[in-house]
């Protein structure tokens, strides 16, 4: 009896299975809506500051030979020039900040007039710097990356 086909009663209208079979696109629409519902309240933000300076880009630098104008010709002007006890320091700054959040109260706002905010959020700030120290003749004395983090900040909301 359990496996017996469901009898159709024309008075009650077509069954759900028949509607789905007649309109296969309904399955796609429902599936898409379910998938979208899964992402309700998701938020992804990214802030990119300046361009990355890679070790390959600065491999041409020769200590005691490369000058500031030559450096600028290859990788552009520095973001900052400061004085230190050993000479003028040129700094190239860049950063890539990614943040993601999920608001678990957002689905409620689709159906209810008010739904409280319940948000988990995480931001990964990845500031990096390339420093070059020049002698009084503006020739490179030393250079290096202040911080070279190979781990890219990932888009993930879990803050714990």
């Amino acid at each position: 009896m359990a496996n017996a086909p469901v009898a159709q009663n024309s008075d009650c209208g077509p069954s759900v299975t028949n509607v789905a079979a007649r309109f296969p696109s309904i399955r796609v629409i429902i599936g898409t809506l379910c998938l979208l519902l899964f992402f309700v309240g998701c938020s992804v933000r990214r802030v990119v500051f300046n361009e990355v300076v890679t070790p390959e880009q600065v491999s041409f630098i020769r200590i005691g030979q490369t000058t500031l104008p030559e450096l600028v010709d290859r990788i552009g002007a520095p973001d900052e020039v400061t004085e230190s006890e050993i000479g003028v320091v040129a700094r190239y700054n860049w950063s890539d900040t990614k943040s993601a959040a999920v608001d678990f109260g957002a689905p409620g706002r689709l159906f209810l007039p008010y739904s409280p905010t319940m948000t988990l959020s995480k931001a990964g700030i990845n500031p990096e710097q390339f420093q070059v120290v020049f002698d009084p003749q503006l020739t490179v004395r030393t250079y290096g990356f202040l911080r070279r983090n190979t781990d890219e900040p990932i888009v993930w909301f879990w803050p714990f």
Partner: protein
Amino acid sequence: MLLFRPLAGIIVVLVLALTQGCVVSRGTVGEPLQEDAISAIKKGTTTMAEVVSLIGAPDRIVRGNDREIFHYYYYDGKSPAMLLILLNFMRMDVKSDNLYVFFNRNGVAEEVVYGKRTSRTEFRLWPFGD
């Protein structure tokens, strides 16, 4: 003519519906640096006063190796965002132009360093990838 009115209305409604939740914003810091003024600075001849009259007062003055260094900067940021009921995407791209004029003890320009990055600032919405 009467046929065009409903069509125009539909197009307007469609455009509004498709662009709802879109945010486009832009922020700048300072004034763009004028390249003709920068190229007018001649090493060994242009004085500090002439540089100020050409470009204006510097944003910062740095002292290094017995030199005065004038620093001029300009920042340009572009940020498109898509704030939908379901999803929020936002990306901001910020780049800077920098000009440094190195003066010797006599107040004469001895080096000019200029880099322009803001021309490569883009409105990019997709926050993933490079």
